[in-house]
């Protein structure tokens, strides 16, 4: 039984302890506010990015031009309580028992890669808009969807139904309102097809990578084109930006919102895969300057995204753990980092695990958003979370969105790829609430519009839908987008 005296003493103890803890926060040391007006009003284009990359005491970020990265990281690590600064994923290739060539191409076993493709871009892009667009999903100025709805058109690379044997692809422009193909971007030349497309979000233009089709001449050469859409959804001003020796893998092409910076991974072709390179190309009028970083078997990019100004790059990558199991994490790299091994220029933001499915940097560069899943004996939950780029590996607390799916069979020990197959199989049989399971139900990918409010979702069955991130409403396109399997899409 507590006496009143005991209680009084306890209350005083508590007050004293609280005051002592609170006293560690001194006036003048509290972090200021971001410029909300700029975050919201000028939306994705005006937000600062590199300026936010300062460590404690206003010191420069993790990868300064003076090359004192390691020492700086150590200082940062000790300077902040309760947080862990990141290490650099630099496990030597020799320790990783996978063939370098295969890793360079896809990085992880085919099944896992397939699962990653299914979900890679989906939730990532759901998150970014919530970070910057506000509760009503307000739309910034810009041609893409400026009239208050989703963009009128999107671009989709799909396997040509007539050419499934050769694997030829076409780049369609599809109406959001009708789901019908309104035009097709002409193949850049005989024997070449568009394979990957990404959107430049400041205007309704796109960057697409074209490769020679199988058996065609032209060597191991990928061409990057930029084109714009007319009001009628017809491609115009198809311009060759640059040629790349090698292949640009799926999801490994990104453009900044102003279109002046393009990032891509290039690998070798055919049997000569070699080790890939991450390349950042700065387009300045007719001039192109490139910076590249070499890829190792221990660190294999799976998808790229760029901040609005193209100064920060987020890389979702696979690392092979000591057990041989691929782990995916997210790293950040400054686009002006010194050349060298990619693994030594990145900073980890999301710890590699089997849980991370997708990640992308916000337009401001302040945050990396990740889609993670958690599994128990009975359910799998897809969870979208925000990680602060400036504060290390501890997951940030903002859960933006999550969906759960019940599993029919216990997934203990089930590899991720099998798990997703299980879930995908389960969904149609157990629920009609397709909305709840859109991540696994509808897609192999997703693309955000320029405002960040509408997310385009597409899947291999050529079913397309778009999601209003402000309301959570999923709208199926009235007709199948097209025949053939959509492998890349953007708006």
């Amino acid at each position, binding site marked *: 039984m507590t006496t009143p005296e005991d209680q009084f003493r306890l209350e005083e103890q508590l007050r004293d302890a609280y005051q002592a803890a609170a006293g560690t926060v001194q006036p003048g040391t509290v972090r200021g506010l971001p410029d909300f007006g700029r975050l*919201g009003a000028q939306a994705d284009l005006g937000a600062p990015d590199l300026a936010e990359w300062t460590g404690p005491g206003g010191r420069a970020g993790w990868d300064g031009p003076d090359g004192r990265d390691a020492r700086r990281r150590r200082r940062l690590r000790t300077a902040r309580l309760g947080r862990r600064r990141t290490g650099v994923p630099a496990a030597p290739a020799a320790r990783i028992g996978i063939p370098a060539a295969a890793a360079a191409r896809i990085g992880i076993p085919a099944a896992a890669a397939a699962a990653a493709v299914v979900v890679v871009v989906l939730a990532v892009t759901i998150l970014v808009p919530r970070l910057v667009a506000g509760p009503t999903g307000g739309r910034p100025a810009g041609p893409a969807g400026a009239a208050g709805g989703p963009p009128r058109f999107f671009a989709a690379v799909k396997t040509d139904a007539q050419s499934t044997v050769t694997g030829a692809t076409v780049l369609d422009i599809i109406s959001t309102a009708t789901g019908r193909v309104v035009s097709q971007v002409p193949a850049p030349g005989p024997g070449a097809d568009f394979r990957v497309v990404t959107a430049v979000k400041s205007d309704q233009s796109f960057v697409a990578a074209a490769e020679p089709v199988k058996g065609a001449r032209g060597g191991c050469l990928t061409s990057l084109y930029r084109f714009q859409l007319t009001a009628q959804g017809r491609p115009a001003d198809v311009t060759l930006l640059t040629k790349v020796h090698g292949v640009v893998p799926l999801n490994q092409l990104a453009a900044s919102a102003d279109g002046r910076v393009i990032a891509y991974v290039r690998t070798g072709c055919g049997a000569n895969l070699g080790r890939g390179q991450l390349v950042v190309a700065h387009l300045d009028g007719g001039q192109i300057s490139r910076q590249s970083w070499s890829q190792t078997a221990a660190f294999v990019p799976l998808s790229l995204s760029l901040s609005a100004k193209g100064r920060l790059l987020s890389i979702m990558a696979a690392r092979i753990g000591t057990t041989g199991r691929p782990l995916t994490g997210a790293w950040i790299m400054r686009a002006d980092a010194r050349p060298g091994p990619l693994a030594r220029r990145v900073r980890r933001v999301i710890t590699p695990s089997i849980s991370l499915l997708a990640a992308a940097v916000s337009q401001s560069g302040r945050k990396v958003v990740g889609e993670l899943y958690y599994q128990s004996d009975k359910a799998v939950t897809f969870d979208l979370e925000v990680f602060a780029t400036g504060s290390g590996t501890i997951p940030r607390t903002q859960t933006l969105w999550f969906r759960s799916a019940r599993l029919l069979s216990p997934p203990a020990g089930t590899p991720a790829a099998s798990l997703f197959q299980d879930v995908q199989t389960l969904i149609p049989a157990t629920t009609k609430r397709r909305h709840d399971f859109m991540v696994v139900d509808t897609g192999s990918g997703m693309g955000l519009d320029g405002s960040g409010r509408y997310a385009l979702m597409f899947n291999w069955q050529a079913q397309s839908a778009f999601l209003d991130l402000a309301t959570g409403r999923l709208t199926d396109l009235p007709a199948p987008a097209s025949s053939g399997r959509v492998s890349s899409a953007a708006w």
Partner: protein
Amino acid sequence: MPGWAGRIRLEPPVRTLNGPGPAAVSAEWADRLIREAHEAHAVRLVRVALLLVGDRPSAEDVVQDAFFGLYRSLHRLRDPDKVLPYLHAAVVNRARSVLRSRRRAALRQIPFEPPVWSAESAAIAGEERREVLAAVARLPVRAREVLALRYYLDLPESEIAAILGISRGTVSSTASRALAALGRELKEKP
């Protein structure tokens, strides 16, 4: 075309934190209001958040989020006197999200270094204080929230009830049980 921040309107006429304001306010006005509120309350809010989440960076994240939430909710917040209660509630809710997220991270075996009140921490002077805070940290989240609001912010029960969305009676009983549990924890400590 203005972005969403440019379209903010406060209706009906409202007062700023320092007095009457225009009927329809600009984004600049909203920005100024937020900054005034930040200047006035940020330190105290970070301290509360620190007591709830245990580490400074997370606490600052929480407070920054709370202010961002306030900015986004200005059009619904017609009474400026509600700014501080709104911020209190936002901090408590976001701190709860931090803890929830941390639990999930623990499931994924992502290590979290000890918060400021851990035995290893030199931030809090005095072993006894650290023990008290560590014991508080072992209480249920709701109990910790009630204790922090009551014994650090010295808020009346009615206000705590409003912030947490519970009844006054629940506040009272939660505080009572929390203190009892705290007393037991500290007595059991060798």
